[in-house]
């Protein structure tokens, strides 16, 4: 076994970035929701919805980017549902989120099964292809790692920049951070707590759905039951690890991706010595460790999980 040779291989880093891509979308989405003060445990189900809807749109004949748009809209719709339950109605964010996950998952599965009742093997679409950028793609190392990813990975990286810019450089970002810290502060200044929070949840959920869409439209080319497999929950852990910062969110997702990519490679080399499942478990254990490490130091949005009602102070 030679970890070093793995760590300097191009394919390893390319795989890390690929594995990290859906997580980047998911963590950014969760980050926006939580910055506004609302936990969105609907993420796991919204991943499924994004995966199913994006794929289904393309399978029914839409273009790939239209599929991405459909996925985002579907995610936004379920996000709106969560937003209504948790913001104006102020219901338990935990229970509502789990409810949304169950609902979104069953809607997706039911729709898929009803549309395609009698297929034995899942039908396939033509997914996003690696962007072969002339010259850049031919660069050693960087060319392989960065410039042979699909457009959705680039979209994810672009989103990191956009979310960072919005959160740190615009009045909207300041307002979202403020409403997650002390809703009275924005209410007293005449802004709508409800609109800010609901908007943040809808936007965040749309991003989460893109994470799902990546799975069926870029990483794979078909929709399977159970394909999201806890990726949403991992994002919830990573956002705490990232202290609600987009830059650290990217780092966290990449770290996770690298670890996941490493375990696959170690598994092939050490498979005889250790059961493969040990490696499969590792990413989840890593998430829990990340959570434990970050829990105490993390600067939680102070109003997270606390509902706010107009006129009650």
């Amino acid at each position, binding site marked *: 076994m030679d970890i070093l040779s793995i760590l300097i291989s191009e394919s390893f880093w390319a795989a890390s970035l690929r594995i990290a891509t859906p997580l980047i979308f998911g963590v950014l989405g969760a980050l926006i929701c939580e910055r506004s003060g609302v936990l969105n445990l609907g993420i796991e189900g919204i991943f499924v919805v994004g995966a199913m809807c994006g794929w289904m749109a393309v399978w029914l004949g839409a273009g790939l980017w239209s599929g991405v748009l459909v996925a985002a809209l579907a995610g936004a719709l379920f996000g709106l549902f969560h937003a209504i339950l948790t913001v104006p109605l102020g219901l338990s964010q935990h229970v509502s989120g789990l409810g949304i996950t169950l609902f979104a998952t069953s809607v997706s599965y039911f729709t898929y099964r009803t549309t395609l009742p009698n297929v034995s093997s899942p039908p396939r679409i033509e997914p996003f292809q690696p962007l072969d950028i002339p010259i850049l793609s031919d660069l050693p190392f960087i060319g392989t790692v960065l410039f042979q990813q699909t457009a959705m990975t680039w979209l994810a990286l672009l989103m990191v920049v956009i979310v960072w810019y919005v959160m740190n*450089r*615009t*009045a*909207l970002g*300041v*307002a979202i*951070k*403020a*409403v*997650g*810290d*002390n809703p*009275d*502060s*924005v*209410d*007293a*200044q*005449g*802004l709508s707590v409800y609109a800010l929070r609901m908007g943040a949840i809808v936007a965040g959920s749309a991003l989460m759905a893109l994470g799902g869409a990546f799975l069926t439209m870029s990483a794979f080319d078909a929709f399977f039951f159970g394909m999201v497999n806890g990726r949403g929950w991992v994002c919830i852990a990573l956002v705490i690890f990232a202290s609600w910062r987009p830059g650290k969110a990217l780092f966290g997702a990449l770290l996770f991706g690298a670890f996941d990519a490493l375990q696959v490679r170690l598994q092939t080399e050490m498979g005889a010595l250790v059961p493969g499942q040990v490696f499969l478990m590792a990413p989840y254990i890593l998430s829990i460790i990340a959570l434990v490490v970050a829990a105490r130091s993390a*600067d939680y*949005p*102070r109003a997270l999980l606390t509902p706010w009602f107009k*006129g009650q*102070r």
Partner: protein
Amino acid sequence: MRTVLSLNGLSKRFGSVIANNNVTLTLKRGEVLALLGENGAGKTTLMNMLFGHYLPDAGTIDVADENGQLQSLQLGHPQAALSSGIGMVHQHFTLAENISAIDNITLGSERLLTLRRDRSAARRKIESIMEKSGLNAPLNVPVGRLSVGERQRVEILKALYRDARILVLDEPTAVLTPQEADMLFENIKAMTAEGLSVIFISHKLREVLAFSDRIAVLRHGEKVGEMATADADEKTIARMMVGADTPKIARQEMAAGETITELKGVTVSGRSKRDSLESVDLTVRAHEILGIAGISGNGQSALAKLISGLAIPTRGTIEIDDQAITSPNPASMISAGVGRIPEDRHYEGIVGAMTVAENMVIERLSDPDIQSNGLLRRDAIQSNASTLTKEYDVRGPGVTASAQLLSGGNIQKLILARVFDRGPRVILANQPTRGLDMGAAAEVGRRLLEARARGAGIILISEDLDEILGLADRIVVIRDGNLVEADSQDREKIGMMMAGEAA
């Protein structure tokens, strides 16, 4: 002087409680109006109606526009109040702590959906306001790192930045040192000279007399008097505030007995100065009420946590009845004979969703008359509750109703019943009358004196110096986590000690 604001016959009910009844009030340009009244007199409700947080049940509000013409204000809309030039500084600051002061100030006055922000104009405006008014605060640091005084200045700057012509300050000095308070009033004077009109809510007679132009007094939700400050004196206002016939608590002199509680060199290291104590000594004796005076946030909460068993000292010892408390926790404190009346009765005092009867036994779940073999004795719990509600006059929908349905005063009576029924040796009363009406507050005082007569030692923490002067046998001033005993009951001297000046 022109009238800039006129409240006409405002009324507001919450359920069966009348918070305001037909209140009429006017404010003139450049005037400082003090709105006085006891806790619960309806001052804050009135201002919340003005600011659009509450919708009045009856009445109207007129506000002068830029040209000085009175226009009727759309009720129940904070946005309308904001844009007609009313600024409010709440008692509990409405600041987001994770963003800077300048962000807090400009929040809501910038377009949210622009990509670029140009804040140099905003910064210039804020700096010019700071210069004119003398209200200074660091603009670029997250507000969470600012001191209380600085945060309050940011709150006022928020209103002035939005061109407030009328500024409402709700108990602005509650959290300030006397020096900070004086400075604040200096700043307010500077601003009224520029044409700002100010309403400040207070129940501190001294600062009202010193800094206002006119005084209006509320009692039980109604305006009971109004006068020019020049014509007012402490006695008349005090009588207006509390009404003519409030029984003065009869307090007998009593010789202190044996030492019951002793703190020796106790240090509590909290996360901030607010919840730290530095090597303090304290003795509480039988038949004695020990008053802890101090400005909010000087270590009172650390002292309360320590006596409640919620804070573990890093150094020093606690002795109760000559027994050292080796592992302080709430249960060991209770069994050592400490009765605790917590500061925040809703948060720490009761479990609102559980019944009145259950809340009355929550501190004595291991007593054999409450349980046998781990099963609750429900009849005993019921009859205990019936007895106590009668004895302590706890009124509400019954002992099997959830405790959250009780009014604040009755919740406090429930806690008193729970604490006093056990005949505690030491009683910690932390802000026991805050937010209570006169009757309930007097009841608290009477019970404390009763316990004193019985031979208990009482630690009374209060930010209301009058309350301490009225009840305490001895006064200790808490400041920056240190305790210093006052050698007299002279309010001037104690005030100086609270402010940190040598007396």
